[in-house]
């Protein structure tokens, strides 16, 4: 058992521990509230432990290798050729760390949950294992398994611990995702059979396709690309498949929103980079203008809809649609800069949007409303909170020296220099999204934070508590760190991103780009 396996399954171990702890102590008559407190601490323990252990990946990671590292391979279902094949590469390393980093913070953010604490925490931990599994799997079958497993805990988190319309939101979330993933299952089976029907190994299939050993017939290729793309576009979500997202976000408990935005959506963009681009380079090239068009529509549409939202959480949810449009735009630009920027933007979005949801959650806990009009002048009673909310909003809208700026800047520059038809136009249109995001975020800040205190209830609001600081400060710190020293992150992703890019546009053009740079 190697490091990656340990990181992936530690949370599951925690879930088992929670289950047994509850069974044992409840039968001994320990009071419910005391037990709930213990459940929370056990969960914190396991999520922090997972994060610490996952940090050990960093020293062992070699940035000069594009292929997966720290791999562990075992035969699993031999009659299908399914392997337990996990590892980590430049594309997944930071996503894994993002997941383990966000988890303890979301547990802190759900400290106030009093309904069925044990089950809540068990679902959170199972969810973590599922998400980590998605990012570390290098076997398509294993990937699919984890991809589906994440659904169930999230479904319960929304359905049981969510808001008013939680049932509608939970079912919508589940059905949308299942539609996509079942189509992907067919595509996985098809690719596996075209590859000889003996292996689901992603690395092997990627190589076979790149070297022409495995040929997918032309007519089928498009539909297989479509099946993968639909699954991931729904997850991202790309306009016009985004309608499940605002519902899910608004109804989910705060931690659910943080994880949904922070990690689950990244599974979509990650899948695009891992499957669509390397498996179908030519179709991806052909489809790039279309995808970029949809991404740009998403950027602008998400921003415009966010602007008119009266509900803060909905505003942040629509801003996600807009921001993830940038990520998709960057991925399909096929330039190193844009793709690196896209990967970076995935992390940024996880940090910033996660923090925004956390902030909205904090306000909601105090006032039990998220309507912007119910607030005003919150900065007076809550100065520390407002400062952090401010920093996070600025990072989300792309202020230089904060993380959002790096991602969006790289994507726009990279898209502008892309060879994809109409890329320059898309870059220009996408850039308006940056401006719009400044509009809706600053406008919200102004209405919520600044000015005089308009309502009496808001005058006595308690400032950020110690527990909340533990949740929010790490995110704010990360936003600043990632904005100041991006190379620390970008260096380790470079090789893997480039190898994907080379499969799509070929090595030759890479030379051309380098010359252009000089």
């Amino acid at each position: 058992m190697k490091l990656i396996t340990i990181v992936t399954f530690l949370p599951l171990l925690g879930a088992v521990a929670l289950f047994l702890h509850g069974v044992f102590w409840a039968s001994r008559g320990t009071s419910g509230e005391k037990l709930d407190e213990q459940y929370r601490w056990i969960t914190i323990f396991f999520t922090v432990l997972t994060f610490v252990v996952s940090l050990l990946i960093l020293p062992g990671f070699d940035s000069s290798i594009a292929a997966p590292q720290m791999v562990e391979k075992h035969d699993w279902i031999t009659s299908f050729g399914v392997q337990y094949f996990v590892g980590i590469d430049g594309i997944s390393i930071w996503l894994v760390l993002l997941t383990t980093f966000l988890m303890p913070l979301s547990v802190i953010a759900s400290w106030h949950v009093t309904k069925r604490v044990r089950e809540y925490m068990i679902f959170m931990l199972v969810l973590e294992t599922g998400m980590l599994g998605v990012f570390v799997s290098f076997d398509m079958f294993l990937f699919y398994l984890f991809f589906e497993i994440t659904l169930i805990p999230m479904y319960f988190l929304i359905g049981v611990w969510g808001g008013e319309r939680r049932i509608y939101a939970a079912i919508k979330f589940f059905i949308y995702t299942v539609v996509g993933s079942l189509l992907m299952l067919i595509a996985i089976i098809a690719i596996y059979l075209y590859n000889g029907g003996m292996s689901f190994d992603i690395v092997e299939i990627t190589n076979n396709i790149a070297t022409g050993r495995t040929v997918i017939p032309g007519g089928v290729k498009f539909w297989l690309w479509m099946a993968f793309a639909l699954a991931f576009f729904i997850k991202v979500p790309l306009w016009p498949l985004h309608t499940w997202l605002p519902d899910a976000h608004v109804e989910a408990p705060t931690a659910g929103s943080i994880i949904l935005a922070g990690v689950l959506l990244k599974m979509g963009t990650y899948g695009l980079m891992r499957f669509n681009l390397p498996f179908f380079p030519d179709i991806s090239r052909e489809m790039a203008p279309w995808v970029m068009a949809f991404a740009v529509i998403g950027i602008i549409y998400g921003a415009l809809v966010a602007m008119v939202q009266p509900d803060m959480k909905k505003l942040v949810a629509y801003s996600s649609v807009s921001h993830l449009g940038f990520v998709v735009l960057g991925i399909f630009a096929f330039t190193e800069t844009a793709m690196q920027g896209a990967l970076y933007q995935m992390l940024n979005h996880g940090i910033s949007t996660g923090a925004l949801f956390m902030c909205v959650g904090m306000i909601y806990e105090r006032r039990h409303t998220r309507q912007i009009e119910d607030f005003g002048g919150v900065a007076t009673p809550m100065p520390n909170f407002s400062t952090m909310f401010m920093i996070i909003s600025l990072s989300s809208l792309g202020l230089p020296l904060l993380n959002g700026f790096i991602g969006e800047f790289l994507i726009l520059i990279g898209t502008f220099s892309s060879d994809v038809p109409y890329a320059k136009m898309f870059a220009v249109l996408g850039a308006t999204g940056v401006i719009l995001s400044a509009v809706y975020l600053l406008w919200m800040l102004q209405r919520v934070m600044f000015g005089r205190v308009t309502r009496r209830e808001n005058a006595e609001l308690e400032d950020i508590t110690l527990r909340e600081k533990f949740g929010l400060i790490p995110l704010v710190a990360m936003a600043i760190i990632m904005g100041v020293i991006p190379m620390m992150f970008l260096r380790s992703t470079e090789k893997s991103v480039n190898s994907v890019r080379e499969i799509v546009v070929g090595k030759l053009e890479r030379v051309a780009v380098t010359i252009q740079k000089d």
Partner: protein
Amino acid sequence: MQLENLGLYYWAIAPEIIVSVVAVIIMMVDAFSARGARKLNAGIALVGLVATLISVIMLERLGTGSYFSGMVVIDPIRIFFSVTILLAAIVATLMASQFLKDEGLPPGEFFSLLLFATAGMLLLAAAGDLVTVFLGLEIASITSYVLAGYRRYDLRSNESSLKYFLLGSFSTAFLLYGMALTYGATGSTNIQKITSAIASGQVTYPALLLVGAGMMMVGFGFKIASAPFHLWTPDVYEGAPTIVTGFMGAGPKAAVFAAFLRVFAVGFGPQDSPIGVQLHSGWVTSLAVIAALTMTIGNVIALSQKNIKRLLAYSSIAHAGYALVGFLTGDFAPVAFYMLAYSLMTLGAFAVIQLLARAGDQRTEIAEYAGIGFEVPALSFPLAIFLLSLAGIPPTAGFMSKFYIFRSAWDMNPELRWLVLVAVINSIISVYYYLYPIVIMFFRPLVPGFIKPRIAGLTMVALILTVLGTFYLGILPNGLMNAMTKPVAVVSQITGR
């Protein structure tokens, strides 16, 4: 003629013998013991079933081949389907003890009927001759009719039994007529001889064979509840005692699938002779249409069901459709794996429903499950797991078995890929109604008046077995799949050793 040449080799039917003998023993014990020797009867039944299971596994050592003049065969189909049937019977026995106590029903007859039904199913799975198929089917069916009406003071149970009986007899007539026509065309009732007659083109009246095969397909279609012969299922499932419903959905269905496979996929397999080609393409095409219809009708009607037993009845129709997709690959392994997985999840689900419904099947409306999710987690979480497994969500048996079917179908027959797509679209539809009870159980507030059901020890064992089985097949199917796909030396001896 010496007896040895007839292949009278009793070890080859050891499982059937053991089950029948144990069933007789239970009748005797029941006759001579004071009223209500429930635990004793259940114990004997369990021991007998486990012994039978062991004897089935030992069958493999005898090697594949036919015995009793080809009336009975030993092959992987028999072994794997027999295991499924016996597991279903064991789980049903475990649950029956509490059911009989709660309902105050006589235990002796129940267990002996259950075991006789099992004997019939085992024979059906072992049949190498159309006559044995018929014999096994009748033993299994007649006992099932009685079991369906076991709660004899309950009108719904009576209705269920009568409907099951009438439509079952009707379908048996089709089957028998089909067998007669096939015999007329090929001159034999032995499946191997029929196959060689078709292969060599020595068929007296080709049209007779085609009609005969068609009628048998109708007969089998009735028994596995495939559309358009499915109409009896919901009423029978709803009215029968829940535990019997679970058993009927698992055991007999698996047994009929075994016989169906042996007659069609093996017996009427692809041959070079003109009649062989015509027959094979004919049944493959019609079965593909039936499979698509079955899945779609089952799933679409299930969407509007408010009663959990009816919901699972329609789901069982849909699952017969998925299994038929695997059928068309001509390989028995995906179907056998599917039936095993399906039996475990559906039996588990019915076990929970039985406990929640309490005596007399009072609470079977899904709306009555509101909010019980966290009240009885020992029941609601297993039910959720079974439902998600039925919906095909990993890492459960339901996912793995569907994957196996889809993969084989996509791989082996390019002309049937449309059917795989239909199956996938159906899986998507099915997610919606499988989620419905979960939504009601976990996301809705509790309705007042809910009484926590008592869970007896044996019932708990049944639940744990089915939950573990569901995860085991979903996570570690390797051993079983390798055993199924292991190439077997096919010995085509008509006479035994």
